[in-house]
């Protein structure tokens, strides 16, 4: 029997006492690991949210939202200002319009419905013949419109934030001014359009270059053209109804938004997903802080359990230590024996705690995040009836922004516990630190025990 076996044997000499210490320590280790896992997952998600949502800034003419509102479109000079703003890496511009029955030979694939009728209830008054007759004013019946979007980037129309799905044909060059168009799948079906088919719009012949699908009935009933083409066809040279600017880093979004607000003044409404993301990740940052405090508290509790336990063990066995020293046991051997004893308890507790931690860290993280998301989330998944888009008409980037905000909320609830090797190593490191601390205390105490004093006083 040597120091190692004596230390291990001593650690289990009182199974009940050692078991209680091991259990308490295991719980604290499990908490440390769970908190580290939760913290890692939350921090990772915060970075992800910032990275995916933080670099797009939407600039629209003040008072305009899609085809709704009033005011003047953004001008070429304003676009130039946006493009030259520091940190802006690229922009995509859109101009939206609607084709009435006089503007095109296409038949809208949307039913007008009561919603569409209500939207058009004022629009024919300008053209209605004046009458003093007490009979009702004669107005043309409302007709479904076909939305048309001119853009420099066809992907800005996609509703999922990704690339637009071209079902057949191909996308056009965003900088082109050719009379070409991508047609929504519903509109194409309604009008029997295929690749190479033509239709008239604004008195010009437009060639179908591709047919796209988004899964959104409103979008799939529209037309996409190069922005320069639409500007020419609608006689709005240089006009833009919405710009999405991409910033080089999420860290620069706030300063760039400020710069744009300064340079564009009150002529434009500027919104960024980063602002929405900031409020969304605020609750996650709260959880991250909470878990950091949890790691510290659990580590302190674990260290205290081991230190106090070993302190009591050494006090309880002062006489035994005195005897061992009296019969020739060196300080090194006595200290070694108690260090092995402390380490044995610590290692058993740590193994149980780490296994326990692996098992509970997932549910604990999910529980922490879902309860936080429930209490702080302000954005919700938007349910829109087929053909309706929040009364905004074909919003383009506005719709994408809505999708982005919804995605942020989804992100919050999708934080899943991930136990990385780094997190596991951190937990093991903290455990070793506690073990060393728990061993150093008895070492210090046993070294101070003088056998003559113990044997005299006991």
């Amino acid at each position: 029997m040597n120091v190692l076996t004596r230390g291990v044997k001593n650690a289990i000499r009182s199974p009940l006492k050692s078991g209680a210490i091991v259990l308490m320590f295991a719980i604290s280790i499990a908490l440390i690991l769970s908190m580290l896992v939760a913290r890692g997952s939350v921090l990772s998600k915060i970075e992800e949210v910032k990275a995916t949502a933080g670099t797009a800034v939407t600039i629209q003419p003040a008072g305009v939202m899609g085809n709704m509102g009033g005011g003047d479109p953004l001008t070429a000079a304003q676009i130039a200002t946006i493009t030259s703003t520091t940190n802006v890496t690229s922009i995509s511009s859109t101009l939206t319009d609607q084709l009435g029955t006089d503007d095109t030979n296409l038949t809208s694939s949307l039913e007008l419905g009561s919603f569409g009728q209500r939207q058009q209830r004022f629009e024919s008054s300008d053209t209605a013949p004046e009458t003093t007759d007490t009979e009702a004013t004669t107005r043309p019946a409302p007709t479904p419109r076909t939305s048309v979007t001119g853009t420099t980037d066809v992907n800005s129309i996609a509703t999922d934030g990704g690339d637009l799905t071209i079902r057949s044909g191909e996308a056009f060059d965003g900088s082109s001014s050719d009379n070409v168009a991508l047609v929504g799948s519903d509109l194409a079906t309604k009008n029997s359009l295929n690749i190479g088919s033509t239709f008239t719009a604004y008195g010009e012949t437009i060639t179908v270059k591709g047919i796209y699908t988004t899964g959104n009935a409103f979008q799939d009933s529209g037309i996409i053209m190069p922005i320069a083409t639409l500007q020419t066809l609608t006689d709005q040279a240089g006009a833009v109804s919405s710009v999405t600017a991409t910033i080089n880093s999420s860290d620069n979004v706030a300063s760039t938004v400020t710069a744009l607000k300064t340079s564009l003044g009150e002529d434009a409404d500027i919104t960024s997903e980063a602002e929405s993301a900031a409020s969304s990740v605020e609750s996650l940052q709260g959880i991250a802080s909470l878990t950091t405090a949890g790691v510290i508290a659990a580590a302190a509790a674990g260290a205290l359990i081991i230190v106090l336990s070993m302190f009591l063990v050494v006090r309880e066995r002062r006489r035994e230590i005195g005897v061992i020293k009296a019969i020739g046991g060196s300080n090194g051997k006595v200290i070694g024996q108690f260090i092995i004893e402390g380490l044995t308890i610590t290692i058993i507790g740590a193994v149980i705690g780490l296994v326990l931690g692996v098992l509970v860290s997932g549910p604990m993280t999910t529980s922490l995040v879902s309860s936080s998301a429930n209490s702080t989330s302000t954005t919700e998944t938007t349910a829109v009836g087929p053909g309706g888009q929040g009364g905004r008409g074909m919003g383009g980037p506005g719709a994408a922004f809505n999708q982005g905000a919804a995605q942020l909320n989804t992100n919050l609830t999708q934080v899943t516990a991930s136990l990385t090797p780094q997190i596991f190593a951190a937990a093991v490191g903290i455990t070793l630190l506690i073990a060393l601390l728990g061993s150093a205390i008895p070492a210090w105490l046993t070294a101070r025990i003088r056998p003559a004093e113990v044997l005299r006083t006991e």
Partner: protein
Amino acid sequence: MLTIEHVSKTFNTPGGQVQALRDVSLSVNTGEFVSIIGKSGSGKSTLLSILGALDNPSTGSIVVDDTQINKLSGAKQTQYRARQIGFVFQQYNLVPNLTALENVMLALEFGGYPATSRFDRATQLLESVGIEEDQRQRRPTRLSGGQQQRVSIARALANQPAYILADEPTGNLDSATGKKIFDLLHDLSRSQKTTIIVVTHDLEIAGKTDKTFILKDGKITTK
């Protein structure tokens, strides 16, 4: 040979300074069986602790075989205890978590005895002090007082020490068992030429030793 010259020991206690030993001088020849008697509090155990290098005197010197042990470093004193001294305590002081055999093997380990032969040596020692085979694997709590003291003596003899220091070795035993333990120590003294110093208040035991020192109020006189 063991020589103590002008040894004094003073303790600081909450009630003030206590002088346990006052200018004590004595010498013990190799192989002698010596007793130290005195009333409780006379300084007997303190003297034994100093002889066993468990404590250092406040003044004076202890010379054992030409080595002044009170001037040795802590590590050297530990080595001295492990190889030159065997302790026998009134309370036996066996390690409670170890069996009788392991208690003896522990002393062998501290004395630097080869690991491969510790078991055989411990078995032989326990056999020599009358511990039966089935008792060797028992922990101290499952042994009688007399058996524990026998194990304690076997442990003290483990490294063939030059000196055995026994503090009231029969104090907790009935008279018959006490006599057997005393006879065991006496036989050792005779057969192995081991110097044995026994602290006792039993005058009958003291009467059977080669030399007796009487300790009174920290001062010693040879009987």
